[in-house]
């Protein structure tokens, strides 16, 4: 069980690193926002996994709060991109 947990979390961490390479490389601003979106989604899954292996019910609440705030922050970024573009014209 423990080895499985280590394998899962290491694979998830590698995928987070892959997302971060796009965050550094991304040619335009929307690319970076996409990678931020993915980052928060994967992190929510990882948080729930950690809460299971620490056997801590409380972390589930924390991950729900994290999901709410991540959604709203990504939405703010997207609306900001949408609005600034139109204001220039």
């Amino acid at each position: 069980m423990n080895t499985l947990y280590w394998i899962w979390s290491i694979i998830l961490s590698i995928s987070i690193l892959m997302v971060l390479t796009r965050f550094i490389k991304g040619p335009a601003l929307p690319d970076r926002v996409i990678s931020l979106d993915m980052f928060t989604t994967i992190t929510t899954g990882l948080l729930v996994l950690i809460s299971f292996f620490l056997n801590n019910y409380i972390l589930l609440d924390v991950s729900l709060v994290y999901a709410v705030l991540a959604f709203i922050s990504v939405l703010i970024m997207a609306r900001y991109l949408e609005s600034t573009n139109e204001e220039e014209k």
Partner: protein
Amino acid sequence: MEIIGIILISIGVIFSTLGALGLIRMPDIYNRLQTSTKATTLGAFSTIIGVGFMHPAWLIKTILIAFFILMTAPISSHNLGKAAHKAGIPLTDKTQIDECPQKEENK
């Protein structure tokens, strides 16, 4: 019960990694949105449900978190795609046709 949970979590982890791979490999923003955010949504969804199956007392709470992600992820990725299209970020050369009108003329 535990076996179902292990299978679901493994599926979730694999799809998260595939989504990250798609984010690196795809040529333009829209295709990146296609392959990446959706795959990670399924990845997070099945990871969370899998945890719920492995610990049945938490099942309701995990289903709640999973459905919240399922509701919110398409909204934010739709708005990202719309913003990118409005900003005039070019599509790849492979694109066949673009029928979505630029909205500026209407206003």
